[in-house]
């Protein structure tokens, strides 16, 4: 299939617009529409749909990618029962859920606060918004890797700064090695990276509130506190919920940063679902099993996201 895709893409690309124009001058809108849309569809069919279907098929077999010559056996839904009854998988799901909830709660509060402050439009707020933005533009893997350096107990800047502020000796706590602290180490980096994203969407939300509503409230002599709770927050809520949705999906899939910060450790304390999946698929090479797990994860994200979108639409309609 990718062979055709390859030539299609090339054909579409190599032809100059004039040549295309000459050839398709007589084409109907319908033909133009399909000529425009089909390359994308073909690409997605080849690199999204076909692999997805393949994954579904694999999830019912005992196939292992590191034993290409071993006979492949159809084993039905065994992997699904196996996964759903495996306590280690449930631990990984809980770790993921806790990470998603904690990181997003903090980012939402922090991001909205920052957005609200930026919306005060102080001098230079545009420049500082850009500065705040920087972390989210960077590679989570590359920067996450550097954070392991900042978290070093004896020489790391993070520990040094914490000890400078609180007076605790810098080598008395280990952000990455301690069972209670390591989940927070990840939340901190994630927050550092992604608060700007929540902030930006919240700024858009705040700016979308028409001024006349505030003016009306002022005529009613509503207190600042009440204006915030009855106008600002409800009207920005759909935006906040959107930010939460996107961050939620992203963090549910989280792999790169956790992989580089803790690799799932200590023990399995920070082993989020993606890390488990990577271990099963690319270290143990249990392709069938990991395909089933992949499908379960996909269905979970998809299901949760859909329920959430329904709720979001209800909020929007209010």
């Amino acid at each position: 299939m990718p062979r055709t895709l390859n030539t299609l893409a090339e054909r579409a690309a190599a032809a100059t617009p004039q040549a295309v124009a000459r050839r398709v001058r007589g084409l109907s809108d319908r033909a133009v529409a399909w000529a425009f849309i089909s390359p994308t569809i073909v690409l997605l069919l080849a690199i999204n749909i076909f692999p997805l279907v393949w994954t579904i098929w694999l999830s019912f077999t005992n196939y292992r990618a590191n034993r290409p010559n071993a006979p492949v056996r159809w084993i039905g839904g065994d992997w699904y029962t196996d996964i759903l009854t495996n306590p280690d998988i449930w631990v990984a799901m809980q770790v993921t859920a806790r990470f998603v909830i904690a990181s997003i709660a903090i980012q939402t509060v922090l991001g909205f606060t920052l957005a609200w402050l930026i919306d005060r439009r102080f001098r230079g707020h545009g420049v500082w918004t850009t500065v705040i933005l920087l972390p989210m533009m960077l590679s989570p893997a590359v920067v996450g890797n550097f954070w392991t350096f900042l978290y070093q107990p004896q020489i790391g800047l993070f520990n040094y700064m914490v000890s400078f502020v609180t007076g605790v000796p810098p080598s008395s706590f280990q952000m990455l090695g301690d069972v209670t602290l390591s989940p927070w180490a990840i939340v901190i980096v994630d927050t550092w990276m992604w608060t700007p994203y929540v902030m930006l969407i919240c700024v858009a939300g705040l700016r979308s509130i028409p001024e006349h509503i505030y003016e009306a409230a002022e005529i009613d002599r509503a207190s600042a506190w009440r204006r915030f709770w009855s106008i600002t927050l409800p009207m920005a809520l759909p935006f906040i919920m959107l930010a939460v949705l996107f961050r939620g999906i992203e963090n549910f899939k989280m792999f790169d940063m956790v992989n580089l910060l803790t690799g799932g450790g200590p023990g399995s304390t920070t082993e989020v679902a993606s890390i488990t999946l990577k271990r099963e698929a690319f270290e143990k090479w249990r392709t069938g099993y990991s395909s089933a797990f992949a499908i379960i994860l996909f269905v979970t994200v998809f299901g949760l996201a859909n329920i959430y979108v329904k709720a979001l639409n209800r909020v929007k309609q209010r």
Partner: protein
Amino acid sequence: MKRLLATLGAVIAAVGIAAPAQDAQAQGKTLTLCWAAWDPANALVELSKDFTAQSGVNMKFEFVPWPNFADRMLNELNSKGRLCDLLIGDSQWIGGSAENGHYVKLNDFFAREGIKIDDFMPATVAGYASWPKGTPNYWALPAMGDALGWTYRKDWFARPDIQAAFKQRFNRDIAPPKTQAELKDIAEFFQGREIDGKRVYGAAIFTERGSEGITMGVANALHTHGFKYQDPNKPYSMEGFVNSAASVAGLDFYKQLYKCCTPPGYSNSYMQEGLDAFKSGQVALQMNWFAFFPGLHKDPNVGGDRIGFFVNPPGPAGRGSQLGGQGISVVSYSQNRTEALQYIKWFASADVQKKWWSLGGYSCHKAVLEDPNFASTAPFARDFLTAMGEVVDFWAEPSYAQLLLAMQKRIHDFVVADQGTAKQALDLLIQDWTKVFKEDGKI
């Protein structure tokens, strides 16, 4: 839009050119050798300059740090990648790589070129070259002998104040440990001590979670306490061997060592962290692979007279050292098989092996190891021979990665993350391993 399309065309053209360009390179004879990124690999680069000078074949190198090495390279082999022509792969990969056809079988080549596998130390041939174990089927040439040993700060051991304090506390002279218990005594003794105004710690040991670190480290404690992978009379029967009282004692010992005597933040440490801790003067003892000892010995700060070496000391159940080391194999997907075999032939010669040892690589060649002067060529040479005589390896089964990951998890959960007891951890390990062997149809 025109510009966009033009750029796209250019990019596709560039990609199109890039693919044949690699082939063209191959015709200009460039071999890529893949190995772990560590001191011996850099020494091999230096050594390989001779091969290029002699044969005209250029050498390229892909070195991956140990924590990522197995993942990356097994991924490469399983994807039938053509990145590596030559691969110095870890000892446990041999089963899978032989059974799945990743490595070229070398028997015919050895016969044709007159390379005698008997020229290499038997333990290394068994560990790095043959599969199934104990049969004369060779998939690699032993390239780098290795075992898990220890280094210590000889200069600290020689200080009168330390000697006095140690004697007072333990009523014996401080010396490289003769037993596992003594090892822990020494580590405890140094833990938190001030030396030259600097706080130092007992021992740097392996606790890494992601790849193989803690399994390798704990093996030194387990084997000396009486751990066995399986019933010697009944393969894959592990109950009472993996979780015997002796194994439990060994695991508990390792945890105590971790809890009492390691530097702060030592929860995910492997060879590199050990080197860091030792070289920066933080620890008195360091567990590490012999492979690093030449580099450590040359270290300007802690090398020379300041460093001493010892073999993993015996425990209640006798001696044992974790096997390290690798053989060099030709990857069967390589398009430069002739040149790759040529490299192996060159590498197998006694002269090259001697230079290999002098540059810091552990030759497995008898011409080097059985030289009467070998023991005096380096302060760790004799220890190396001792260690290689008592090595134990992890499972080399085709499913070794699954077995290893299970052990990593169970041991790390217990030792570092404080979950359950040693007995529980080993019981769970048997469960995990049994499941793997069942899936493989071995039981």
